[in-house]
């Protein structure tokens, strides 16, 4: 998933502000926070281990039992409750649609021993589509990708993942475009939707799954629904923005010619916003792919399944190949949609291929694709991928690579893990999680109050109260520790690399494509290499979170620092500032808005990953959620954990925003 938020303009110094005083205020605030922490440690020394509200493995609180009872009553009312009947109906429709598509391309359609259309036909059609919407390079990429899916032995899983992704993207367009038009036209709808979409994006993806499972059952229907929910916001946001940004003077000029509402929409607004809309589709596709992978947790079909089952067994080698195929698919989808958005413009300008040649090639391609489909229905070799030539080679190769990787970098990684664990993670966790709940809670509220004023304190109080109520206090504190440590690491990386990128365009040139690529890869895949290095520990989740969050944060910082006006920099240089002074006194303070945004995004990404990491040894809330999926009697605990994650996310987000606002 890529960040869609643009960096805010660099903060402007207020004309009348007295900088000295502001600095004093900042210092005194830091001192206050340190004071709170000192008192906290002092009290902790006498009270540690008391009232930590630790729950042992299978222990449940009444709140969790209530949640479990709620779920049971929902399931029991399946035949009478119209809402559940509706969601089950919708779910069944999705299952039927996915099942029909699967029988077309990925699983045997009884009584046929093979799908209706074999690999040859599917590959030919996909390659043709690649050429039709983009160009021959994309067609080659598509061809190579599809051949790899077959050759490595993951044909049907890859097809399933594509099906879920495409169904979700198709539905996103059908549902999202009217909403995009609506928010472009109605200010009030825009406000409502922006808030709703903000909330949806604050929530870690994983949290959607539990309630959706309740209303749609596990399997393809939940996979489609949660993918749809996750993929919809970028399209609505970006397409809505695109439609709204259509030049007012053009709209007025064409209105003055007497166009109807429909003519205005289809002849002026949509064509002029076309490029932005395709960018929205690109973002939506990438989001859908990443969520469709995660949906393997609820038995969603696709390539996520082999990755997940290998990860659960700590068989990193087994996860490498399907993981790489997911990356390949992400690159293919990203390149294809991006090229499609650029192509329209080129062709319209007459820079595309000669239209007559293009038409002939298209016709020929169509015929070839049709022949391939026909052949793939007749001959077994074209129906089922002939063997899996690369599967075993790849498996042994990946095992060897993982072993080499672990041997080579394991030492360094272990050292890093130890340093962070003993230097930062363990002390923080001891303080947060081993304090009595009332101590940790009041300390957190006090720190929020100092950093962000009343608003932050109220947000912290409400969210912490919620956490206390849900009964997973101890686990929440552990997850909070991991999130804070990972965010700190993200920000260190973002500041160093971001400033470096902003100051040296050669560095930017090298790093930016890597970061872009990092953002297109579904986060799930990050777990694989990290697991190889750190084994199933909480550090795995932290590092995976850092890797997942870093690209967006680095880019935000780089763009923010680069956005600082050249004039101001020149003025500072003319006074003889050193490079260090220039960075710390001019560039970073002026890019403060971007830094805050980067930290905020970093927090939410890291939190999302800390949860996914629950299944690879991170424990705490993430583990509770996973447990809720796998054991029906633990559903209540899983739901409580999911809600706790949401509360943590909201608290961190609100306190962060309030703190940023407060310093102005």
């Amino acid at each position, binding site marked *: 998933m890529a960040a869609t938020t643009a960096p805010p303009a660099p903060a402007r110094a207020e004309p009348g502000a007295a900088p000295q005083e502001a600095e004093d205020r900042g210092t005194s605030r830091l001192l206050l926070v340190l004071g709170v922490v000192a008192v906290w440690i002092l009290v902790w020394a006498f009270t540690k281990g008391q009232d930590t509200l630790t729950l042992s493995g299978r222990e449940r609180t009444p709140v969790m039992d209530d949640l479990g009872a709620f779920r049971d009553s929902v399931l029991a009312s399946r035949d009478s409750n119209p809402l559940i009947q509706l969601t089950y109906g919708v779910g069944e429709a999705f299952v039927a649609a996915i099942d029909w598509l699967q029988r077309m391309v990925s699983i045997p359609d009884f009584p046929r021993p093979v799908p209706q259309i074999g690999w040859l036909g599917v590959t030919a059609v996909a390659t043709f589509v690649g050429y039709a919407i983009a160009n021959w390079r994309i067609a080659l990429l598509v061809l190579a990708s599809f051949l790899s899916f077959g050759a490595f032995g993951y044909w049907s899983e890859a097809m399933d993942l594509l099906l879920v992704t495409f169904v979700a993207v198709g539905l996103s367009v059908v549902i999202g475009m009217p909403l995009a038009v609506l928010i472009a036209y109605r200010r009030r709808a825009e406000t409502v939707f922006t808030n709703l979409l903000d909330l949806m994006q604050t929530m870690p993806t994983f949290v959607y799954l539990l309630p959706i499972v309740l209303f749609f059952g596990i399997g393809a229907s939940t996979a489609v629904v949660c993918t749809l929910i996750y993929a919809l916001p970028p399209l609505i946001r970006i397409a809505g923005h695109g439609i709204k940004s259509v*030049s007012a*003077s*053009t*709209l*007025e*000029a*064409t*209105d*003055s*010619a*007497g*166009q*109807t509402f429909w*003519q205005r929409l289809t*002849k*002026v607004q949509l*064509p*002029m916003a*076309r490029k932005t809309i395709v960018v929205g589709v690109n973002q939506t596709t990438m989001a859908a792919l990443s969520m469709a992978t995660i949906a393997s947790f609820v038995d969603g079909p696709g390539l996520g399944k082999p990755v997940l089952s290998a990860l659960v067994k700590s068989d990193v080698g087994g996860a490498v190949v399907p993981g790489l195929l997911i990356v390949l698919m992400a690159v293919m989808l990203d390149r294809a949609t991006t090229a499609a958005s650029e192509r329209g413009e080129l062709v*319209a*300008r007459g820079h595309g291929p000669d239209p007559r040649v293009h038409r002939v090639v298209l016709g020929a391609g169509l015929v070839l694709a049709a022949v391939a489909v026909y052949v793939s229905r007749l001959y077994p070799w074209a129906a089922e991928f002939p063997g899996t030539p690369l599967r075993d080679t790849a498996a042994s190769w990946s095992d060897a690579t993982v072993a080499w990787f672990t041997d080579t970098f394991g030492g360094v990684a272990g050292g890093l893990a130890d340093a962070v664990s003993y230097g930062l993670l363990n002390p923080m966790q001891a303080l947060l999680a081993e304090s009595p709940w009332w101590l940790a809670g009041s300390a957190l509220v006090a720190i929020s109050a100092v950093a962000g004023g009343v608003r932050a304190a109220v947000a912290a109080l409400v969210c912490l109260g919620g956490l206390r109520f849900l009964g997973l206090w101890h686990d929440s504190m552990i997850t909070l520790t991991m999130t804070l440590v990972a965010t700190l690491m993200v920000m260190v990386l973002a500041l160093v690399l971001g400033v470096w990128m902003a100051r040296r365009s050669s560095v930017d040139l090298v790093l930016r494509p890597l970061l872009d690529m990092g953002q297109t890869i579904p986060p799930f895949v990050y777990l694989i290499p990290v697991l190889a290095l750190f084994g199933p520990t909480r550090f795995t989740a932290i590092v995976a979170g850092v890797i997942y969050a870093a690209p967006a944060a680095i880019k935000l910082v780089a763009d923010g620092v680069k956005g600082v006006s050249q004039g101001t920099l020149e003025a500072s240089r003319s006074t003889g500032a050193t490079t260090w002074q220039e960075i710390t006194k001019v560039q970073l303070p002026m890019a403060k808005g971007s830094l805050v945004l980067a930290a905020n995004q970093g927090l939410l990404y890291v939190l999302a990953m800390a949860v996914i990491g629950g299944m690879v040894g991170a424990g705490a809330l993430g583990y509770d959620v996973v447990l809720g999926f796998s054991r029906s009697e633990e559903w209540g605990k899983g739901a409580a954990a999911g809600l706790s994650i949401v509360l943590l996310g909201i608290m961190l987000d609100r306190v962060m925003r309030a703190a940023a606002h407060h310093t102005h």
Partner: protein
Amino acid sequence: MSQTLDPTVDPSTAAVGDARDAGVSVRNLWKIFGPRADKVLGTPDAELSRKELKAKTGCVVGVKDVSFDVAPGEVFVVMGLSGSGKSTLVRCLTRLIEPTSGTVLIDGRDVTAASESELRDLRRNHASMVFQHFGLLPHRQVIDNVAYGLEIRGVPKRERRAKAAEVVDLVGLTGYEKSYPDQLSGGMQQRVGLARALAGDPSLLLFDEPFSALDPLIRRDMQNEVIRLHHELGKTMVFITHDLQEALKLGDRILIMRDGEVVQIGTPDEVVGAPADDYVKDFTSEVPRSHVLTLKWVMRDPRPGDSTEGPVMPCDTVVRKAAQAALASEHPVRVVDDAGNVIGIVDDDAILRVVVAEEESH
């Protein structure tokens, strides 16, 4: 000069009698922006100045009780500084901005009472507009931009392209049909805007500061283009500008606006020769008067002893054009009206007073 002022010219009724015959007829038009703007009308608040009203009600007056008529085939210029309400006024004519009250008739149709579909019909067939920032469709070639108005009327592709090609030729864009707007210079883009407005063959053309965004030289070319098109096509035009030179050059009559109100309506020589107040006077003080004023404004009444040898000139001759012949002659110029009666005398002094005063002021 003031002694030559003709007191019988009342600017507001100078042109046409019956509103039904007019190309455009505007009566008591108001536009007030802001919350519950319609509540302001008819109360004493409406008489407040802009600033006071804003302070009291939060509403801003865009157009304040404006009335005027435009004769068919006339070029009517609305002039004012930015914020004077002129752009709001022209948008109220086709209800791109909904007027708060008042009536607008175009070709005798009541625009202000028109239904949605009648209004669309009016915009499609009777009144077209040219905009300051062109408002072209960037994803369409020139020819399809020009044909846009015809397209939304439902004219078949072949027919509308043929018509658009004609208009493209008319505005001098031959050869650029297949270009995209961003491949053209500003002046050429505005020619596309002009062509688009002409393609539907409307009876009324509205121009909203069409040349303000252009370089001075290109602006002059485009002004001449408008004059040429007006001669060739004879359409009624309402032209908005903040440039007095442009107003004097193009306008048959000029309406001067300030803070949403009409300050003066008159022909170019009336505006320069008899400014309604200090505001207009200040405005027109830089204008080369000999280029605008006619002999009517500098002549004196004939006296019994005047020489009858001098050249004879019609009273609407511009001073600058009359100057050479007048100064070359030993005798003063005799100014005649349409019927050929001598109505005044212009001697060298009168001519020199206009020309020399101009030299001094520069």
